[in-house]
């Protein structure tokens, strides 16, 4: 019983700090995801470009990101990035997270672009469209729609992964818990509260992504009728 009361007390005591931290986590996730989509799109194009060199670069990037722990990447990128440019921890962290998610998103985009029937590109080209124009107007809008479920999933992973940026000194949810437990000497209860915040966010986003997916598939069905 005392544990539950203690958790509840910590929840109340740190209410404002965690609320601020939630905002930080969301900002971090959103910024890194937007950057990651840009990175992902570029490397997806590298992979389908037909150029062996570009394909090799993309493959190397994806292999390294997949083959090493995120925390190692974050530290490595953080110390690399701040040697090149002076960046606040938030931006350095967001950029590092983006470089990580970008590899996964590159594969998502590559898959969804290649899943579009090749007749679409041929029809566009036969009308005189250039390759970039056909991509932009015909292929990408369809590919993007098809990628939404996987992107939603990657978004949720990115939300949880953003906790590691705490080690760069960003006061997002996990970082706030780190500070709080150092002050109140109640790590078990404090991390429990932090976990609760993540869980609520993930449940909300899962619900949103499912809803979006459902709407897309309903649209699809309506169209097929």
């Amino acid at each position: 019983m005392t544990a539950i009361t203690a958790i509840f007390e910590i929840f109340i005591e740190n209410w404002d700090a965690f609320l601020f931290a939630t905002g930080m986590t969301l900002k971090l996730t959103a910024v890194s995801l937007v950057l990651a989509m840009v990175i992902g799109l570029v490397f997806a194009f590298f992979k389908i470009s037909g150029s062996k060199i570009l394909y090799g670069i993309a493959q190397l990037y994806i292999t390294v990101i997949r083959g090493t722990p995120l925390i190692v990447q974050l530290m490595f990128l953080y110390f690399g990035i701040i040697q090149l440019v002076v960046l606040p921890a938030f931006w350095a962290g967001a950029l590092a997270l983006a470089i990580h998610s970008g590899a996964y998103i590159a594969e998502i985009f590559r898959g969804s672009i290649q899943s579009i029937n090749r007749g679409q590109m041929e029809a566009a080209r036969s009308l005189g469209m250039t390759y970039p124009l056909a991509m932009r107007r015909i292929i990408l809008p369809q590919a993007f729609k098809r990628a939404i479920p996987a992107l939603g999933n990657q978004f949720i992973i990115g939300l949880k992964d953003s906790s590691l940026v705490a080690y760069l000194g960003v006061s997002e949810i996990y970082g706030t818990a780190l500070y709080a437990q150092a002050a109140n000497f109640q790590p078990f209860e404090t991390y429990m509260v932090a976990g609760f915040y993540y869980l609520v966010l993930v449940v909300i986003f899962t619900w949103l992504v499912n809803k979006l997916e459902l709407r897309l598939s309903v649209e699809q069905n309506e169209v097929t009728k």
Partner: protein
Amino acid sequence: MIHIKQMNKSFGSLHVLKDVDLSVSEREVVVLIGASGSGKSTLLRCINYLELLDSGEISIMGQMVNPQKDNLNQIRSEVGMVFQHFNLFPHRSVLENVTEAPIFVRGLKKSEAFDMAMPLLEKVGLADKAKNYPDQLSGGQKQRVAIARALAMNPKIMLFDEPTSALDPELVGEVLQVMKELAKEGMTMVVVTHEMGFAREVADRVYYMDEGKIVEDGQPDDFFSNPQNERTCTFLGQVL
């Protein structure tokens, strides 16, 4: 309009087109027949440079084409193509399918493109479907939209690759009807089809392809009633 000389095309070790010669004059309707896999689609795709030939020459409208140098997109925009599986853009309405290329390739204003597209949709009998999306149409309707979409670029030549092969039998007629009207208006057409009735009625010349070669050609009457080549006879025996 189209002059093809000694065209060769291989996919890896598969020699698909073998020394193909073909000439199509202005306002001529040419029908290309042949067994599946004989290279008919590849031939059409080469004419439109969707595939690059390995050797030989193609000239279109008196213009020798050098794919390394010339603007293929401009040539393609003068040559309309209709596909077996329609390939309409599913995320665009019927009207937008027709106006997409005129707006983004030719640089027409939206309103100009719409004014040009509506008569074309009327011509193929689908003006009332302008706001619908492709998946709301029957196969025959889709193919008629695809024809309108190609016509919107004002092509000098139209290529049809088995335009009715994916259609339910009762929908074939409406597409052939549109094609017949086009032929009557004097469009230069190359049509790959298994519709022998259409070939008889509309074609100026029929070509029979076998294993990557054109083995026989002639005017439809002669061609169908008195085929010379043994393989042509066998093929016609199967389809007629």
